[in-house]
């Protein structure tokens, strides 16, 4: 093996690398290692991956956008494509920018296309890995070979990277670690010819503690910090990692997470823990949320606090279980029998998953009702780097309060928000409360009185009206007035802000806002919109029979403002910046 490239490296601030292979090749772990490294070298990162929804695997990609400054999207097109197979090459060459570099395995990729000035570099990962590790390893470890190769190409911090690898594989066995490092070193030393090497500008994120992780993991950390100690769920993609992590972590906090027999039992057990006085969480993905709908309406009626996470995926039905979509907004807000008020929140990036979980805990307790968090497949699995959350500052002690309640206690007072007295609470008046899904009077007695039903419906709705008035308007990115306000929710934040930057640099008066409190909407949102000539709502759901996406429809219904326009797509892929730019330009150009 020869030495790594020694020619003078080209300096750069951003790089988008797409790894295309099969899910069993371990390309996710290469991406994971690089993302972790970015966090450790003050860089920014955003990843994007597709995985097949079959167990035996299939074509899979991992795209990684590394940057010295802020990175807000996984990248529209890549600078480097690493193609493991012919199908990887055929399907992903179009994702490479003009003049980009395609590294391919000549043992697998036989037919090349000459187009757009793309530079082809053959690197036999399979045979070189077998040669490096020897024995009967076959091609296991070729992902580590590619990692070494990229490390050399981009002049990444080899010491830190091999440290991250060692920590991961060291957990398994010495043999596995040795083979991984042999493959890594062989990749690092492999001569890639005259494409040269690249050197990143120093990372600009100099804050002391920077972490890199995915949205599901961080959401779980937020729940733990919010005081969640109990709950139950049923496995479904892409929600499952949260329940697996809660199941593993909660015993350390004295809590329990239960794998239920089905979605209905999961939400029922969680409501049981909430009735018992705890802050509890259940979660699922779209179809599972539908199954939980009856019990969620119960929680609205009985006024029990509850966090429900929906990691959205492509629907309807089984749909596209491993693709991103934002088509459960209306289900989250209105998917109920009867008028069942609930709070709906949406995190705008991976970092926000922590803070939205805290917010959900706070609101569930304060308003004693279900709070649904709408995450999505993209947020759930992509890795970003950001400042470590301050646990000391945000820590919430679990809330169980069984101090005796005075004689005038009423579970459902008309003039106040319900505060339940959980089991174990002594009732000084001797009358014990009942929590119920039948319409009830202030003491919880069933009542079918027309007056009571109207008053109780008002009481349950009033909580959300109060919250709407208490909520600040969402943050504006850019100026507070202009020609166009782009409105988004959830994982579209990055591409939308990138769009704003591009259009502003071209002289357009464009701003954006990401709505985190989706229901109720902040009361002042109309004032905010009124300072713009046009409003464009960007979301990943269908424009429907009437031509407006789900959030656009709600905003138009609330504000009766014909200036609100809608841009939707449902191709299962996160927004590219150029798609949002094109839609914004079209809106700007219209009268």
């Amino acid at each position, binding site marked *: 093996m020869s030495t790594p490239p020694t020619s003078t490296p080209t300096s750069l601030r951003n790089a988008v690398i797409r790894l295309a292979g099969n899910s069993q090749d371990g390309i996710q772990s290469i991406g994971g290692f690089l993302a972790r490294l970015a966090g450790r070298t003050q860089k920014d990162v955003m990843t994007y991956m597709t995985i097949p929804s079959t167990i035996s695997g299939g074509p899979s990609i991992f795209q990684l956008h590394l940057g010295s400054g802020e990175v807000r999207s996984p990248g529209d097109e890549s600078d480097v494509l690493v193609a493991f197979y012919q199908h990887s090459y055929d399907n992903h060459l179009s994702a490479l920018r003009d003049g980009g570099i395609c590294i391919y395995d000549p043992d697998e990729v036989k037919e090349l296309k000459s187009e757009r000035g793309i530079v082809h570099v053959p690197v036999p990962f399979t045979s070189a890995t077998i040669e490096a590790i020897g024995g009967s390893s076959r091609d296991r470890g070729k992902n580590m070979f590619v990692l070494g190769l990229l490390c050399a190409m981009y002049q990444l911090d080899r010491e830190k990277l091999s440290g991250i690898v060692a920590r991961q594989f060291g957990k398994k066995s010495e043999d596995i670690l040795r083979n991984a490092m042999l493959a890594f070193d062989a990749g690092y030393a492999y001569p890639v010819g005259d494409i040269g090497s690249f050197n990143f500008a120093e990372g600009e994120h100099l804050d002391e503690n920077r972490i890199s992780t995915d949205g599901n993991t961080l959401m779980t950390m937020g729940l733990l910090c919010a005081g969640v100690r109990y709950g139950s769920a049923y496995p479904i993609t892409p929600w499952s990692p949260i329940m697996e992590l809660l199941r593993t972590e909660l015993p350390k906090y004295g809590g329990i997470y*239960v794998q239920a027999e089905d979605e209905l039992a999961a939400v029922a057990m969680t409501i*049981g*823990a909430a009735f018992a006085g705890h802050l509890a969480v259940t979660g699922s993905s779209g179809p599972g949320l539908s199954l939980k709908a009856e019990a969620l309406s119960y929680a609205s009626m009985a006024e029990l606090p509850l966090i429900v996470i929906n990691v959205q995926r492509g629907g309807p039905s089984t749909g596209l279980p491993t693709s991103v979509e934002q088509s459960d907004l209306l289900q989250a807000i209105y998917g109920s029998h009867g008028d069942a008020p609930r709070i709906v929140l949406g995190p705008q990036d991976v970092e926000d998953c922590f803070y939205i979980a805290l917010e959900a805990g706070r609101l569930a307790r304060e308003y004693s009702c279900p709070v649904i968090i709408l995450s999505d497949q993209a947020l759930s699995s992509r890795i970003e780097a950001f400042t470590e959350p301050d646990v000391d500052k945000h820590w919430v002690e679990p809330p169980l309060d069984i101090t005796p309640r005075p004689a005038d206690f009423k579970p459902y007072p008309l003039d106040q928000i319900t505060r339940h007295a959980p*089991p174990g609470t002594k009732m000084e008046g001797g009358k014990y409360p009942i929590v119920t899904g039948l319409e009830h009077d202030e003491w919880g007695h069933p009542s079918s009185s027309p007056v009571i039903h109207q008053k109780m419906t008002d009481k349950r709705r009033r909580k959300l009206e109060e919250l709407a008035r208490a909520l600040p308007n969402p943050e504006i990115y850019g100026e507070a007035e202009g020609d166009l306000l782009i409105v988004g929710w959830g994982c579209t934040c990055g591409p939308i802000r990138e769009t704003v930057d591009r259009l502003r640099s071209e002289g357009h008066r464009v701003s954006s806002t990401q709505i985190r409190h989706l229901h109720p909407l902040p009361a002042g949102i109309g004032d905010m919109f009124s300072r713009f000539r046009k409003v464009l709502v960007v979301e990943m759901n269908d424009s429907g029979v009437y031509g407006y996406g789900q959030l656009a429809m709600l905003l138009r219904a609330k504000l009766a403002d014909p200036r609100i326009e809608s841009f939707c797509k449902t191709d299962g892929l996160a927004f590219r910046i150029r798609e949002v730019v094109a839609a914004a330009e079209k809106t700007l150009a219209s009268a």
Partner: protein
Amino acid sequence: MSTATPDAPSADTAPEKLTKKILTADHPTWCPGCGDFAVLAAFYKVLEKLQYPHEKIVCVAGIGCSSRFPYFVNSHGIHFIHGRALPLATGVSLSRPDVHVFVFGGDGDGFSIGGNHLNHAARKNIKLTYVIMDNNVYGLTKKQTSPTSPQGFKSKTDPTGAIDRPINPMKQLLASGATFIARTHAAQVKHMMEVFERAILHDGFSVVECLSECVMFYAGSFDNSTPRKGGVYDIIDESAHDVTDDTAAFKLADEAAPGKFGVFYQVQRPTKNALEQKWIDAEQARLAGKSPKDVLKNRIAQMR
């Protein structure tokens, strides 16, 4: 927290003595003559005997006539949705080891819409007591066939007589792994109280099927096990039946109507409550007194 056990009543405040009067709440909405009145009366009496702290009694129910039960007991209570009382009670039991959880419901709630939950709560051996008031008919919705209606029973959904084979509650519960399985009768108050008390004192998932006649929609359904109506109330002789022998219990359960009454099966198996607590204890021992806040800080620091 699951490990927290509230303090026992302090010595200076004499614990309130639980009486039927204290435990009585709203007047039952049941029809005159309904078997469920006797079940409620028996429950009051058993609670009077056991004298649990008032605030630690929790009654849970789903939907159905018998599921109105929590309104009629002055204790902490929750009236939930149809069929899901058991998973709700599971959430209470696992997260609050300091309270006593009682679940009440009917045959439709337990064996039909909630059937799968019964299997899983039983196999997990959740610490609670479940009384199924079986009247062999849907009463609240006014006479449709239930999963325990015998073949030939004429209802609004089976005008020519029930077509489908009914389930056998005892056999089903044996198969599902419940650790205390018994059968009693609302017209046999003394036996009912004995069975309830044994069920409540059992450390695990205890379930009692209690035949309770619906006088409106299935009058006379249990005459064959009501001696004053010429029936036979045949109680299991536990000197001849080994309650830990599930095969013997299965055979007993196979006897023709009206079958046997009493405890069919009882074994000790660790509850999920205990097994989860064992895991919690092991995890916490490993953490050697580290505060939950520090556990979280360390976990997040691993992502650096």
